[in-house]
């Protein structure tokens, strides 16, 4: 924990993005999480992703539930509005916010307790509805703020720091997201920034419900031998199926890869993902195969990471509801109020 105020000065030659912003413009307050926490690495990846995408920070709304992970939106994008809402209820708050203004970028940050236990229902339903958002679960398999209880993503047979063995089956959020119709599903590891940053970028650019399960070891309560969410365990059992090399809003002019190893995935807005395949068999467009592949590897103790599924022409909640292009929060009485003449006609029909 630190109460130090973050200094504002920075190196004069820090790299700038298209908007002329540096990394520092995407930072937030100093983290109050434990030193070495996986969540802080995810925060750094989100900052990097937004910087590289040249997003205007204030055009992002960052919404979270309650827990260690849900505190992190305070630590990035200091010029964005943030909402640390109610435990397990980020998805509904974000859904409402998204309905009010379809023009902002919605970043939902949650944890495994927040999304797999108390908020499993809301997680499920916002995936079903296709809310346009990047939903990041910082998954450490443990309740940190209340000191080390198992969460619902803890694997059966894994041991807590106090030596208790978990006898409950784990909830696989990637499996659920796939089944529930998320149109972008990925898993990554907080310790692998090279893999995580492009995935976050792709998720932000994706229109529809984009879900990222980020395994994020808890250094205080879940980084011991016997844990299946420790740094060592995740490194040893990480089965990456692919790697997003870059993203751009223009199709690449020149791609220098061996044939058959790179697939260009164009998203609805014209952005292109260059997907370097580590597993030649893996098809990111096959939802059922993805479910099968991840479940099969999980049964072997392997953690499949990478972009696991993407639907190129995904629709989102606004298209389902056929809402107007203008953000609903920009409409005033002129657009919304039918006026007295319509009311008089209505009165006449009620006699």
């Amino acid at each position, binding site marked *: 924990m630190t109460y130090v105020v973050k200094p504002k000065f920075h190196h004069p030659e820090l790299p700038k993005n298209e908007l002329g912003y540096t990394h520092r413009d995407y930072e937030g307050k100093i983290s109050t999480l434990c030193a070495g926490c996986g969540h802080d690495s995810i925060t750094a990846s989100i900052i990097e992703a937004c910087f590289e995408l040249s997003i*205007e*920070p*204030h*055009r992002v*709304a960052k*919404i979270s539930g309650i827990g260690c992970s849900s505190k992190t*939106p*305070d630590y990035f994008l*200091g*010029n*964005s*509005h*943030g*909402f*640390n*809402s*109610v435990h397990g*209820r980020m*998805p*509904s*708050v974000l*859904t*409402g*916010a*998204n*309905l*009010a*203004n379809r*023009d*902002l970028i919605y970043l939902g940050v949650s944890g495994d307790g927040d999304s797999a236990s108390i908020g499993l*229902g*809301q997680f*499920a*339903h916002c995936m079903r*509805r296709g809310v346009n958002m990047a939903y990041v679960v910082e998954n450490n398999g443990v309740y940190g703020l209340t000191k080390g209880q198992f969460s619902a993503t803890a694997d059966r047979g894994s041991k807590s720091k106090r030596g208790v063995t978990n006898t409950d089956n784990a909830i696989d959020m990637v499996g659920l997201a796939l089944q529930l119709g998320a149109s972008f599903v990925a898993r990554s590891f907080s310790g692998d920034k090279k893999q995580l940053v492009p995935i976050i970028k792709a998720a932000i650019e994706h229109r529809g419900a984009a879900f990222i399960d980020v395994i994020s070891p808890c250094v205080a309560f879940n980084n011991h031998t016997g844990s299946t969410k420790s740094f060592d365990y995740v490194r040893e059992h990480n089965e990456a199926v692919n790697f997003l090399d870059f993203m751009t809003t223009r199709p690449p002019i020149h791609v220098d890869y061996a044939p058959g190893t790179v697939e260009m995935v164009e998203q609805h807005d014209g952005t292109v993902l260059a997907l370097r395949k580590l597993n030649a068999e893996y098809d990111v467009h096959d939802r059922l195969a993805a479910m099968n592949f991840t479940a099969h590897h999980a049964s072997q103790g392997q953690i499949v990471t990478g972009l696991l599924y993407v639907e190129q022409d995904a629709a989102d*909640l*606004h298209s389902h*509801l*056929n*809402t*107007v*292009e203008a953000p*609903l*929060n920009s*409409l*005033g*009485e002129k*657009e*919304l*109020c*039918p*006026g*007295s003449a*319509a*009311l*008089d006609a*209505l*009165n006449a029909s*009620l*006699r």
Partner: protein
Amino acid sequence: MPIQSVNDFVVRFANVNGSGSASANELFARAVLRMGVPVAPRNIFPSNIQGLPTWYEVRISQAGHLGARGGTDLMVAMNPQTWDKDVAGIEPGGYLLYDSTKPMPKTKFRDDITVIGIPLTAICNREYSDPRQRQLFKNIIYLGALAALLDMDVGEIEKLIAEQYKGKEKLFDANKHALHLGRDWVMMNMEHPIGLRVKRADAVGERIFIEGNSAAALGAVYGGATVCAWYPITPSSSLAEAFIRHCNRLRVERANKQNKFAVVQAEDELASIGIVIGASWNGARAFTATSGPGISLMQEFLGLAYFAEIPAVVFDVQRAGPSTGMPTRTQQTDIISCAYASHGDTKHVLLFPEDPAETFDFGATAFDLADRLQTPVFVMIDLDIGMNHRLCRPLTWDDSRKYDRGKVMTAAALEAGKDFGRYLDVDGDGIPYRTYPGTHPTKGSFFTRGTSRDRYARYTEEGPAYADNMQRLLRKFETAKDLVPRPLQANADKPTKYGVIYFGSTSPAMDEAIEMLEVNGQCLDRLRVRAFPFHSSVTSFIAEHDFIFVVEQNRDAQLRSLIVNECGIDPVRLVPILHYDGTPITARFIARAIGEHLDALKITPLRKVVS
């Protein structure tokens, strides 16, 4: 002696639900209305779709009494299951209309009522072979019979049927035929009309006939709501469904057919209020519609909205509780659970409309209040208002009216260097400024949280900062007292030491009860409370009288508790008059209960005699 009454009696239809009786019964009510005579219909129905008993009560009252009266003058007994109870409920001298196809033993009747047997099933079976037709047209046949028995203008019923089946000539003809089957049978076979009659009058005027839930939804449309999130629960579901219906007519962009509204049927009430809070936080006007159990589920979020100061509009269509209670019966039973919803120190704004017209007004105003006060606002109606057609003044809208979006700091103000503290009381009214997300690239952003923070929305666990904020929230609530709809007072002709406080759907029964009490020489000053927090006039009204009756439709005298608690009133001076069996409160009940108390109060207290 059979009851003789023109334009002042109660007809009750006892049916089996799912039999198609509802539309025929409603036709009856509308036909009376078209004859210029006020009606107040009420559905008494089970939590069921098919097969259980259901009643439809139509009070016909040229004097315009729209509250439930109690008792039945004419029973249309179409449900053998409830026969005994239905027959027992008829007033002495009343009438019983029944299907005489199958003979009934004499013991099943009463000899102090007039029995009207019509072989409805026989007429039906003679005419129709399709079982569904037999069932549906039976309802229209008894409607025709009633037209003859009550001397109604059958032309009005025909006109209504024609409006209903506009463009469907065949259906119109079939219904008209069935109507005349019943009417002709009565005209040929029995003495008619009976002692109860509907006589054309001019007592309806320009009033409209609308359900409260529909009016509430229109209020949301006119009030500028764009986001609605809801979870189906009786008796509020038809409110959200009415919003969809109204929006489909009034809120679709003509050019491209796109919607200027978004409705989400959420997975539960927690998600409903979460969506409302998210949308409101982001600057849209949003609401949910629910009932008591939904309010219970929303508690945590409501506390967040209170503390984080996010507008939200909740329509609570109250029903009997606790638990799932009687889902299809009316009560005013969520007063306390809404006024103090959530954990910690919380208080919320409640509005108490009396009928659909006021529900429309308050429904629209609720959005202005929620934005102005940056807090949840509850529009407290109940099943009696929400799910029954009620005769009320026409809905009105002033086209010069502008939405009050409250204190929202704009990009220009931020750019001009205006000091922005999300929880900073700049005007002394306890209401801070807010910004919508995405307003300005570098100014005006803040982190919304349910945990404590300072005036600039920075996280803090310092006691004084927390207390400072809680005090400001109280100041804001004080400000609310003068913004919410004021109580309406009506004094008796003669000065009196007694007053009565009431609210919401009790209104029509109360007005009538006052007339009944005045006939007995008992005078009361009236105060209809229309909102919480209470305006100072509530306290002064109580101060001006020795005793105040507080009339409400719940067991625990919830409004009375709220008055005692918030106005610091000696509870002894507030006499509870409570009605809570799930039926709408009646003038007879109020007049009797208050009358007895007044009689008791006239007896000199014992201690005065001894002293």
